[in-house]
């Protein structure tokens, strides 16, 4: 009971801060501190959102499809590389620098090239998303594999466990928190990546919609689509949290967090 009331109090803070920003924003446009055509009010933004709703949904469907396909491929590749790097040291030495390299390439720089190479359809968007999502998954999961308790592995080995069984019972579940942390970052980046790639060329998608409304100076619509993207990202992060809670029921057990802290004092992860 106490926990519940605490949760409610905790959620009051962000609600108040967001409301404050909305009020400030409304004031800014109401008193014309910033000219209205450049900064539409929250009300106008909502209006634009409602008016263009069917169109927005049509574009959203395309963006989400790209995000989904790209994320799935990126996650599968990332997870597979983490497995390879964990299994063979030479693979670690050979692949790890490449993994880091994918992260150092600025998405803004490579996106136009991808459009040039792969055309205006879905391909360049998916490739960009794969590049973006690959890194957090590969590095996060590898980290999870490596922090597996060596004594637990030895115990399973003494039971005569095969390499696959050690993976199945120790490494895989042990790396799940890292996997989900990576996935949370990944889905938010993926949507932004898709929009960025669409911005640079395409026939449909929220990025394409954005360039069109920008060219017609419809800033209210611009704001509407920005909000839609934020909301979609938040929803996807929420979805990841939901799946995580489903997959990891033991995390909700009373005393779990404390026992984890005792086990690895140096590695408290963000919650």
């Amino acid at each position, binding site marked *: 009971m106490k926990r519940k009331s605490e949760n409610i109090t905790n959620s009051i803070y962000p609600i108040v801060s967001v409301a404050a920003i909305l009020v400030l924003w409304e004031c800014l446009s109401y008193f014309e501190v910033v000219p209205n055509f450049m900064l539409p009010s929250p009300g106008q933004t909502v209006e634009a959102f409602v008016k263009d709703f069917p169109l927005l949904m049509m574009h959203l469907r395309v963006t989400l499809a790209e995000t989904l396909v790209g994320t799935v491929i990126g996650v599968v590749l990332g997870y597979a590389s983490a497995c390879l790097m964990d299994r063979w040291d030479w693979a670690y030495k050979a692949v790890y620098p490449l993994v880091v390299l994918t992260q150092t390439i600025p998405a803004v720089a490579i996106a136009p090239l991808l459009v040039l190479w792969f055309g205006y359809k879905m391909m360049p968007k998916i490739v960009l998303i794969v590049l973006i999502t690959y890194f957090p998954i590969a590095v996060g999961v590898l980290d999870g594999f490596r922090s597996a*308790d060596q*004594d*637990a592995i*030895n*115990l*399973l*080995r*003494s*039971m*005569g*466990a095969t390499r696959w*069984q050690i993976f199945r*019972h*120790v490494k895989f*579940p*042990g790396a*799940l928190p890292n996997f989900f942390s990576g996935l949370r970052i990944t889905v938010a980046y993926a949507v932004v990546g898709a929009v960025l790639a669409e911005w640079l060329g395409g026939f449909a998608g929220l990025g394409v919609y954005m360039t069109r409304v920008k060219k017609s100076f419809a800033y209210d619509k611009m704001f509407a689509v920005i909000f839609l993207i934020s909301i979609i990202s938040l929803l996807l992060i929420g979805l990841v949290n939901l799946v995580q809670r489903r997959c*990891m029921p*033991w995390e909700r*057990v*009373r*005393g*779990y967090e*404390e*026992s*984890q802290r005792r*086990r690895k004092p140096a590695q408290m992860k963000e919650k």
Partner: protein
Amino acid sequence: MTHKLETKNITMNFGEGDIISEISIHVDQGELVSLLGVSGSGKTTLFNCISGIYHPTEGQVILDGTDITGQTGHISYMLQKDLLLPYKTIEDNVGLPLVIRGMKKEEARAEAGKHFQEFGLEGTQKMYPAQLSGGMRQRAALLRTYLFSDNVALLDEPFSALDTITKGRIHRWYLDVMEKIRLTTVFITHDINEAILLSDRIYIMTGRPGRIQTELQIRTPRGQRQDFDLTEEFLEHKRTIMELLEKQG
């Protein structure tokens, strides 16, 4: 008569001198034997050799007359850390050795479930390790060890992380359970009282390199050890052991 488990002149060397040297010990069926010694006397290294995680530089491990040197999967193992996997329920943790051996998850649960009563773990089947006290977790770990192999269990300081009161309670529980399951056990400890209280026989080990110094038989049968630590025999053993360890300094 052949012993249940026997080590013949085990020597382990990682390249910088022997860690343990020419260790020959044996355990008979149903016997509880302790290895008592200071930290760094190579007790854990010996265990790793017996359980097959290491292949000893020299010597053999004989189980029921067969040479099992360097083979895993025969002899079960329990550490001070309970090593219960935080993401598995107690019944799945305990049944893990059965699953490793190829049993289906459901069968392993049923098989493990038979022993919960006996081990004083009733009602914890669906709980996660984090919900149990340290003492209960060690009970679960011992049940897992037992399900892994009812041949011989190696217990490496299993109760040393527990507080004194819990420890006293778990010692009584341990003798009680052992009476029921008759598991052949080698028990590492650096706690003299624990060694005398829980064993039939004690090997005293001294370090660098680890050797067996001497062997001590406890006369009072395990079944009759209420308030054993207050008896003359207990003190006599304790005095002998302390003198021995003192001399090694």
